[in-house]
């Protein structure tokens, strides 16, 4: 169990290298087995995880460049654990349900490499190691979009790469500054995140560094106004690419906010809280409106996905336990739901080779099972109570309500408005008469597709009804982050905005004692 994270990261990569030898007729079975083993390993990780510990677990540390403080430092807490499980789960069902693809061997090997980088990002606790995986994840995605995508695939993939690469280089400068400040303070270089957590920076340094990191993360999320690469990437990517992009890769950005920006720069986080909240609300409303105007189902889902990322950002910058835990939970929920929706679009695209809503209509009578699952997922995406996204959205908004009532009200209304375009899209596709001849005999979801969709539906409902098994470890780890932020904050405003959990706990304890 000691080196399970290393195994989790490098098992798919090694399997990918060996995969070059496997014959292309058998590569699918090989890919599925590897991904299934990987998923099983990630479940083993969950078994071994102690939910009562709020700090890092399964730590591994090997110095790589000791003079410069770079080390191979891994560890997970409740926040990263579930994203890792989700990443391995989506890779598994992604490979298992891969349709007829040209050059399927290249695709599966690429997916295995992508899996390595995804898990690496969420398991790294060293900034440079994090950066390595973060950047490396661009390459497989570039290839997936560029080689298997639609007609504009090259434009879309290069735009995706360059946008993200530019942002992350600015982030790299920020990281080097952070290490330099650490070196100034302690005399040794270090890129270890845990060491950086101990560093209290003056406020104006925090503001600049926050901005540098923000640039990298915001492009990845993507936040308004850096979101323009995403619709292209989604629009051109093959189904598997969109699924992984929406479910896992975008979460790197929001995860990095929780892991880096908040605990490293608490004062700057408070300082930038309102501007970022405004951006997040613009993101929610604006992309919802854009989504409503789309003709293409995939674009609708792509924009709705951006819109929900806005809620995650809002929850993160609530800077209290409810908000952050809610946003982390929403990351999982959004991953499940938008991954499933993109997969559903892929199902219909395989049958009709079009994604235009005007081409459909009345599918509910032709494909009842498909319509049901799509309906459930759409409701989950809208945030209907008892579905997975409701929990996250509710907690995120609840958290932000403590910071600003008006903003939360606007965001809440915006989310409700967001339901309009999803319902409208659903209506256009599934209700009414079957107008097109081609749609009359469409086959319903087959077994292979069920294999992906049933578990996703079950998770979406189960975690909506009973979120505790996931929410509890998340909020445990979140508490330690919030406490760290409160302890590190220097300005009065930050101290006031970020709750002091120790105080609250002792307060409630004294209250109960007095009651007795």
């Amino acid at each position, binding site marked *: 169990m000691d080196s399970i994270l290393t195994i989790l990261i490098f098992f798919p990569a090694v399997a990918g290298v060996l995969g070059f030898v496997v014959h292309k007729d058998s590569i699918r079975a090989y890919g599925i087995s590897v991904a299934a083993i990987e998923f099983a390993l990630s479940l083993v990780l969950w078994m071994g995880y102690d939910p009562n510990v709020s700090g890092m677990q399964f730590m591994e540390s090997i110095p790589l*460049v000791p003079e410069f403080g770079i080390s191979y430092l891994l560890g997970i807490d409740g926040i990263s654990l579930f994203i890792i499980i989700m990443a391995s789960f989506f890779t598994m069902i992604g490979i298992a349900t891969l349709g007829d693809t040209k050059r399927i061997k290249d695709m599966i090997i690429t997916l295995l490499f992508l899996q390595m980088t995804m898990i690496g990002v969420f398991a790294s606790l060293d900034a440079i190691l994090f950066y390595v995986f973060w950047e490396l994840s661009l390459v497989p995605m570039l290839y997936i979009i560029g080689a298997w995508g639609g007609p504009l695939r*090259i434009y879309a993939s290069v735009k995706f*790469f360059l946008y993200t690469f530019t942002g992350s280089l600015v982030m*790299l400068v920020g990281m080097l500054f952070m290490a330099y400040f650490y*070196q100034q303070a302690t005399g040794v270089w270090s890129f270890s995140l845990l060491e950086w957590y101990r560093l209290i920076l003056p406020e104006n340094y925090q503001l600049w560094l926050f901005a540098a990191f923000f640039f990298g993360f915001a492009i990845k999320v993507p936040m308004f106004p850096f979101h323009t690469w995403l619709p292209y990437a989604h629009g051109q990517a093959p189904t598997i690419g969109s699924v992984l992009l929406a479910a896992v890769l975008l979460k790197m950005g929001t995860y990095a906010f929780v892991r880096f920006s908040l605990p490293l720069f608490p004062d700057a986080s408070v300082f930038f809280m309102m501007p970022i909240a405004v951006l997040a609300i613009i993101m929610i409303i604006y992309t919802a409106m854009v989504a409503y105007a789309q003709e293409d189902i995939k674009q609708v889902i792509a924009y709705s996905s951006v819109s929900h990322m806005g809620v995650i950002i809002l929850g993160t910058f609530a800077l209290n336990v409810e908000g952050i835990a809610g946003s982390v939970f929403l990351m999982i929920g959004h991953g499940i739901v938008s991954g499933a929706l993109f997969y559903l679009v892929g199902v219909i695209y395989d049958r009709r080779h079009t994604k235009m809503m005007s081409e459909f209509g009345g599918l509910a009578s032709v494909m009842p099972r498909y319509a049901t699952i799509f309906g459930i997922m759409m409701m989950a995406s809208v945030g209907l109570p008892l579905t997975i996204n409701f929990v996250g959205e509710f907690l995120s908004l609840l958290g932000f309500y403590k910071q600003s009532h008006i903003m939360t009200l606007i965001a809440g209304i915006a989310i409700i408005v967001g339901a309009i375009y999803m319902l409208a899209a659903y209506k256009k596709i599934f209700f009414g008469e079957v107008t097109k001849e081609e749609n009359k005999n469409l086959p319903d979801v087959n077994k292979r597709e069920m294999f992906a969709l049933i578990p996703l539906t079950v998770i979406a409902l189960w975690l909506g009804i009973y979120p505790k098994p996931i929410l509890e470890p998340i909020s445990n780890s979140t508490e330690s982050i919030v406490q760290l932020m409160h302890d590190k904050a220097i300005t009065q405003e930050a101290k006031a905005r970020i709750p002091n959990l120790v105080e609250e706990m002792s307060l409630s304890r004294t209250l109960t004692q007095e009651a007795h």
Partner: protein
Amino acid sequence: MLEPVNISLESLNLSTLTPMLIPIIGALVILCIDLIKGGLNKSLYVMLSLLFLLMDFGSLVDFAQLFSQNGTMMGFFDVMLIDGLAIIGQLIIVVSSMLFIPLSLTSKRFHEYAYPEFYALFLFMIAGFQFMVATDNLILIFVGLELASLALYTLIALHNRNKSFEAAIKYFTMGALAAGFFSFGAMILYALTGSIEINQISAVLAADGYSNIGFVLVAVTFLLASFGFKLSLIPFHAWTPDVYEGSSAALAGYMSIVPKIAAFVVAMRLFEFLVHSNVIWLETILYILVVLTMTLANIWALVQSDVKRMLAYSSISHAGFVMAAILIGTTQANSALFLYWVLFAFSNLGAFAMLWVNRQKVLIAGQDSDHPFEKFAGLIHTMPTAAAIMGLFMLSLAGLPPFGVFWGKMYMIGSAVSGGYTVLALIMALNSAIAAYYYLKLIVFMFMKEPIYQTDKAIHMVNASMPLKTIIGFATVITIFSVFIVSPLMEFITALVYNSGY
């Protein structure tokens, strides 16, 4: 009546000449063999050169050990200066040369490699570069520079095509101009200080507090221009793409590494004290030069339609990036320069070697240069391994972690950060982003397009032979696993640079 001067042989410390004498002897041996029996196969000369280079390498390792014990060594009337910079500089020169020379064992026959003179000139050139880095005497620097450059011009012209002659003459003309600038700059410094040794010059200038600042600046301008030519800094870069295009891909790769590291070492010796002398003007001009070189070369590289020309511009940009170290001037920056250059050497030489293996003798219809982007279209379908390796070198040059050049970039930006050059650090980072575009362009062609030229698929490996594949494989392995060599390499470099006072 002049007093007789007694010089003891020990004080000459002739052993400091060993590293340079080895390649010179090697060159003479090769010439003698040819005199005795002509028409021998090129493999003989390649292996002989390799052996002499190995001996050279061995002697340098020996010097590195001596240096760690005794510190800087002077020799030969105090003209030779073996310090850490000289040792690292020579090591990089010799190792890159060892990687380069087996590239002449192509499976197709090329004109120049049939001549033993090629190998003799090659070894003379190496000796020239070694002289350049192992002295702080301006005259010896000049002699080394000319020895190396004249040999290099001939090597380019030996490729025996119209473009090669053009390249050689262009390079020669520019080189002659640069030599003129150098001697003029050196002359003014001598007139000011009465010395041609860099450390003496700096001592004299510091002692009188830079009172003749005007003349110093004129001298520095000339020297900067001459090194600008050698390092292909903008605006002295115009020869580079043409010369690279005219010479064989292997030689172009070599030229983008070895002459530049020699020039960097000299520039470091020369500008080190000037940058630290608080002459604002010099700092500003270096700053502008660095930023312009990085940025403009990147922008020009964006619009190239030939991979070799693209790589030529990219190597200009890399040179500008590294030149920042001389501006920053801290030990960390100077060490980062060498680290960067070592890692860059592997990736860049690998990339040029990949071009070299697919250099055809006859162009196919519709192809107007040796390596247009279209030629690589759809390489993943026909030759997946070659495409993957080339893609890897491109990603490394783009600075994508964890491949080779990334670590150099990281150290370099890191040293800009700790040297207080925040804006420069940002410019360097953003330039890497611009550069990513043209490296991606080749990847896009290789991985995402369908083949354009309908030809025999062997065209991409037409020159490949075992030695070439070995070199490329070696470069690939170093590029992928560079993360494991960064730490020991950095320790070695920092110790040498620090102990020589830079």
